[in-house]
């Protein structure tokens, strides 16, 4: 409220990136947003690119030729990384936002436990699975790279 002389103290977008020394879930949230935006940007282009198959072989081959450079291949792999993180973290979010793995409400007794701490093993498990998916995809990516 500027007219009353109070000073604005919103963290703004910095509040998404840092804002303090919090647990990993707060940064998992920011990464989930970034990967989501990256995947969305890729997806919108992907719809246009893959719809070119309806315009015949000529159009298809022109588009595919344009995308065959190393820049696009690496970009695709980065999107794949983003997808692996987003999908696995998304599984955790669907489960926890529907109340699973959070325990039950209980009278707070110091030192307090909380649902975020209780669901941390789920975060670890999904990240391990995401890492496996990244490695599998990495193998496939490296196979396709040389000699193309």
């Amino acid at each position, binding site marked *: 409220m500027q007219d009353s002389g109070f000073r604005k103290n919103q963290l703004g977008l910095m509040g998404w990136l840092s804002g303090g020394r919090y647990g990993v879930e707060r940064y998992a949230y920011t990464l989930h*947003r970034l990967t*989501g*935006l990256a*995947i*969305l940007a890729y*997806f*919108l282009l992907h*719809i*246009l690119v*893959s*719809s*070119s*198959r*309806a315009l015949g*072989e000529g159009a*298809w*081959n022109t588009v*595919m030729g344009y995308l065959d450079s190393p820049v696009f291949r690496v970009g695709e792999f980065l999107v794949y990384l983003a*997808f692996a993180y987003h*999908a696995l973290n*998304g*599984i955790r979010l*669907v489960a926890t*936002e*529907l109340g699973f793995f959070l325990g039950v409400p209980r009278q707070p007794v110091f030192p307090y436990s909380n649902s975020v701490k209780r669901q941390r093993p789920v975060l670890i498990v999904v990240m391990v699975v995401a890492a496996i998916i990244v490695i599998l*995809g990495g193998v*496939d990516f490296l196979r396709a790279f040389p000699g193309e």
Partner: protein
Amino acid sequence: MRTRESTLWTWHLIAGAVILVLLGIHMFIMHLGDFFGTVNGDVLAFSSVMERSKDAAFAVIYVLLLGAALYHGLYGLRTIIFELNISERAERVVSTLIVLAGVALFLIGAYGTIAVYGARAGV
């Protein structure tokens, strides 16, 4: 006991689950096909693409995946934009633009899939 936001969010979760399954299948075909011999040769060659396109199952999977992914992604984008402290009028404008973009992209993608299916399957 529902509000408009709760319905939109519920569909966001359901779309996420649908994408998990269908995109998994898509990834399998596009990247792990030759491990398991499901696809012969280059998966991105036009002939290979057309070979898959005449299958009704592919058409259905792709149209569903397209719809779910567009809904999920654009709802996410809307959520991010709405949390950036914009005015109520800006919120209405953004919502409308997102719906229009979603419908347009869906039509483009669905046309791409169905037209090819129609041509190849001799419908």
